[in-house]
């Protein structure tokens, strides 16, 4: 009952159990945080708006994105993955979400930022429905913890629209 093997086994089981409980409590502590993020996106310019040879509309735009996401960080946050997606409806599709730009925020200091950028990923529709269409720009964030449960939420900004004609 007191041999080396039994003692080692007992020690390992105990330490793994304690580590698991610590990870669970760490993850639960994230629920105590009440975040209050804010964001603003301006579409500075529609660079071009064309119909591709295959028949799908494609648009390239430049945006000013500013946000303050500092309140989302807790001691258990490893990084924040944020992205801006355009959301719109077409006759064939009830929902289209196209990610235009994303970034990783590694720490609280970097969470308050302003960036002037064109879309990182191509904005291509399934079809040619974009002329004159209204769309929302949503800023999503995914909190990736050091351990435990991942959270995600978003801010929806409305009132954007495509030009009536190709250019």
């Amino acid at each position: 009952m007191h041999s080396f093997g039994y003692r080692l086994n007992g020690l390992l089981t105990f330490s793994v159990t304690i580590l698991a409980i610590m990870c669970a409590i760490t993850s639960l502590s994230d629920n105590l945080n009440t975040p209050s993020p804010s964001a603003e996106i301006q579409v500075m310019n529609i660079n071009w708006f064309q119909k591709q040879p295959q028949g799908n509309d494609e648009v390239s735009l430049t945006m000013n994105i500013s946000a303050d996401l500092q309140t989302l960080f807790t001691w258990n946050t490893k990084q924040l993955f944020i992205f801006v997606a355009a959301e719109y409806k077409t006759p064939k599709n009830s929902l289209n979400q196209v990610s235009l730009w994303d970034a990783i925020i590694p720490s609280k200091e970097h969470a308050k930022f302003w960036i002037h950028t064109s879309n990182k990923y191509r904005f291509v529709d399934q079809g040619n429905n974009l002329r004159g269409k209204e769309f929302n720009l949503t800023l999503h964030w995914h909190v990736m913890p050091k351990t435990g449960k991942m959270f995600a939420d978003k801010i929806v900004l409305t009132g954007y629209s495509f030009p009536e004609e190709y250019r």
Partner: protein
Amino acid sequence: MGLIGDTVDSIKSIQTRQLLSQAVSLGMIVTSALIIWKALMCVTGSESPVVVVLSGSMEPGFKRGDILFLHMSNAPIRAGEIVVFNVDGREIPIVHRVIKVHERQDTGEVDVLTKGDNNNGDDRLLYAQGQQWLHRHHIMGRAVGFLPYVGWVTIIMTEKPIIKYILIGALGLLVITSKD
């Protein structure tokens, strides 16, 4: 003569009983592990409720050796979710983020495009020949939580199978030689 015969018989019967009870307890341990695994599959609704991150395509968020807890619900797939999917013809599932979603008005079916956070391009190169989008049936679950480093045990055992055999051999030896 009769006394010796009796003693030998009693010794043999003790050893057989001990052997049998050890075999039964080993069987119980293995089956309870299986029951826990299958129960997890039911609770999370996913074929593999826990996966190990094998590549660096989601760094710095998920590193090689982390484990991810998956959950599959009927909720619609939306951009930004980290999903685990199987490509037809590849057996290893891939864990990447959804960057484009097109959901059909009439059928509710969805076209999904994914990309690893650390990759420059989207996953179209990884999909099957001619496939441009993923559909719901390709997706095995969403990542909802994670534990760092714990998956290295699985990676080591897969990449150096000799360690797996040594471990099983040692465990087997321990079970046989223990007095309990």
